[in-house]
């Protein structure tokens, strides 16, 4: 089985900041808006390099989303930055009408998604954002897994026309995807080849899926790990191809099982290739305060949970 090396822990939000800074140098149409979280979103470098293209809107997310929509009308490519909770639920109607329905080229960039935000607790730990965003017609939804992938995704979404929701997080996590990768929106990344179970993971759960695959290998189970960074449009072909080989699937995400990646995979498979599936996700619950590690353990979002789910789903074949 192919092995991956953690080249050093880094936060995905810094990948966003690095990608945005590069866009500042390479694409004069890119502008950035932030709702009083410049440091948290790692937008400082873009701001320092391009003060005239950086718009501090204050604690006013609804206005930020509307302004971003308006800026596209002058040919700009706006990147908005705030926490995932305030990037989605708080401004859902603004995104729905002024961005999605209006077909505006706005990139909604959301940090501190999910439980790994940690100690701030459930008010800030959104576990529903992927569902909210994927339900909007025309919205591309991306959840990246590490620093390098987040940087690549940030650069890639500036090149496509249309609204995007880009989700990443706060904690330092393993950085293991190639530094020079080309990010292909809507294209699954096959990380390991296997024959017994397909593990489809997104975001912070991708590294956990790789750890799980190693543990499963030690138990004589061959796992195929697929990184789905683009939840919409979903790479259905890659998913179907893999489960036709393995006959069962585990989906893993830092999100409610309702509305998340797992449901998108289940829909895909139910239409063409009904397949036993287990969900590693939060089970219709809010989060709470704690360290990211404690929370991921408590809510069953780690390698151990993926191993158990894999063993369970294999028995259901």
């Amino acid at each position, binding site marked *: 089985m192919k092995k991956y090396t953690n080249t050093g822990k880094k936060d995905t939000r810094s990948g966003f900041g690095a990608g945005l800074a590069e866009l500042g140098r390479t694409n004069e149409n890119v*502008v950035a808006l932030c709702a009083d979280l410049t440091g948290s979103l790692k937008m400082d470098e873009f701001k320092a390099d391009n003060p*005239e*293209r950086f*718009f501090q*809107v*204050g604690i*006013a997310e*609804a*206005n*930020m*989303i*509307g*302004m*971003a*929509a*308006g*800026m*596209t*009308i*002058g*040919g*700009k490519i*706006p990147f908005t930055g705030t926490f995932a909770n305030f990037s989605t639920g708080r401004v859902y*109607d*603004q995104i*729905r*009408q*002024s961005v999605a*329905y*209006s*077909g*505006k080229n706005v990139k909604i960039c959301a940090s501190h998604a999910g439980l790994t935000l940690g100690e701030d607790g459930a008010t800030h730990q959104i576990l529903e954002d992927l569902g909210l965003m994927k339900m909007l017609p025309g919205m591309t939804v991306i959840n990246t897994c590490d620093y390098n992938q987040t940087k690549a995704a940030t650069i890639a979404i500036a090149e496509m026309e249309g609204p995007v929701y880009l989700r990443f997080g706060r904690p330092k996590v393993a950085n293991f995807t190639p530094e020079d990768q080309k990010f292909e929106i809507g294209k699954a990344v096959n990380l390991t080849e296997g024959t017994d179970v397909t593990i489809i993971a997104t975001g912070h759960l991708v590294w956990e899926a790789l750890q799980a695959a190693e543990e499963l290998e030690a138990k004589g189970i061959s796992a195929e790990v697929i990184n789905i960074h683009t939840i919409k449009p979903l790479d259905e072909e890659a998913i179907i191809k893999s489960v036709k080989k393995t006959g069962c699937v585990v989906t893993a995400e830092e999100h409610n099982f309702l509305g998340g990646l797992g449901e998108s995979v289940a829909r895909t498979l139910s239409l063409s290739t009904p397949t036993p599936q287990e969900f590693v996700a939060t089970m219709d619950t809010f989060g709470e305060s704690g360290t990211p590690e404690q929370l991921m353990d408590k809510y069953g979002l780690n390698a151990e949970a993926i191993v158990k789910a894999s063993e369970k789903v294999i028995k259901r074949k």
Partner: protein
Amino acid sequence: MPNTQQLEDFVSQVRRDIVRQVHKVNSGHPGGSLGCAEFFTALYQEVMDYSTDFKMDGIGEDLFFLSNGHISPVFYSVLARSGFFPVEELNTFRLINSRLQGHPTTHEGLPGIRIASGSLGQGMSVALGAAEAKKLNNDDHLIYTLHGDGELQEGQNWEAIMYAAGNKIDNIISTIDLNGQQIDGATDQVLPMGNIKAKFEAFGWDVLEVKEGNNITKILEGLKEAKELTEKGKPVCILLHTVMGNGVDFMMHTHKWHGVAPNDEQLAEALSQNPETLGDY
């Protein structure tokens, strides 16, 4: 440049278009539309610099954003009669497969529309984004907006109003349609908003009032004065005192015609009060 009589003739035809659109499909919002017929006419027939060869980016043009999208009948009539799309298309208002949706949208590609509106309170934010983009593009054309007075109850407006003054967005003229009415009754009864002029001024805007918001000459004077106030470091607000339902006597001074269509007899009565000047579609 059209003279006052020509503008008033245009208004008369727009009023006919409004009531005919709404009557045909027995739905839509005639009251607020009629109240703003003169304002839209002034903007599109006299004040704004634009091309009917519609380009979404609007670079090198004045732009208009309608925030209270439910008054789409007046917007559609004025856009059509200003040359953005065929006047006959007004026949399709609110019908299935039409570009003239109940509320304005870019989704069906109707020329002249740059943002969807209908869910209230979002238009000023969008306009500010467009205004910032104009500044980045060194484009000295202006942004015009229209908002209902009841719409100011939406909090997002005040985020935008604060941003505009704080960031010296001085290439925008936002007009508030002060008709004092909303769906459930008079704005002072539904949710009193106090002194709107003082509120805008307290937020740092230049505010001017047009007391006769259905008098085309007074509107033109107000817009001229407003334009002279732009590019001076402050956003500009016009408080436009209008009469809901203006031009159709039985629709005036009441909120009852906010979202109700006239029947056949009422249509005939409304049309009899507004002569056909440019040809019905």
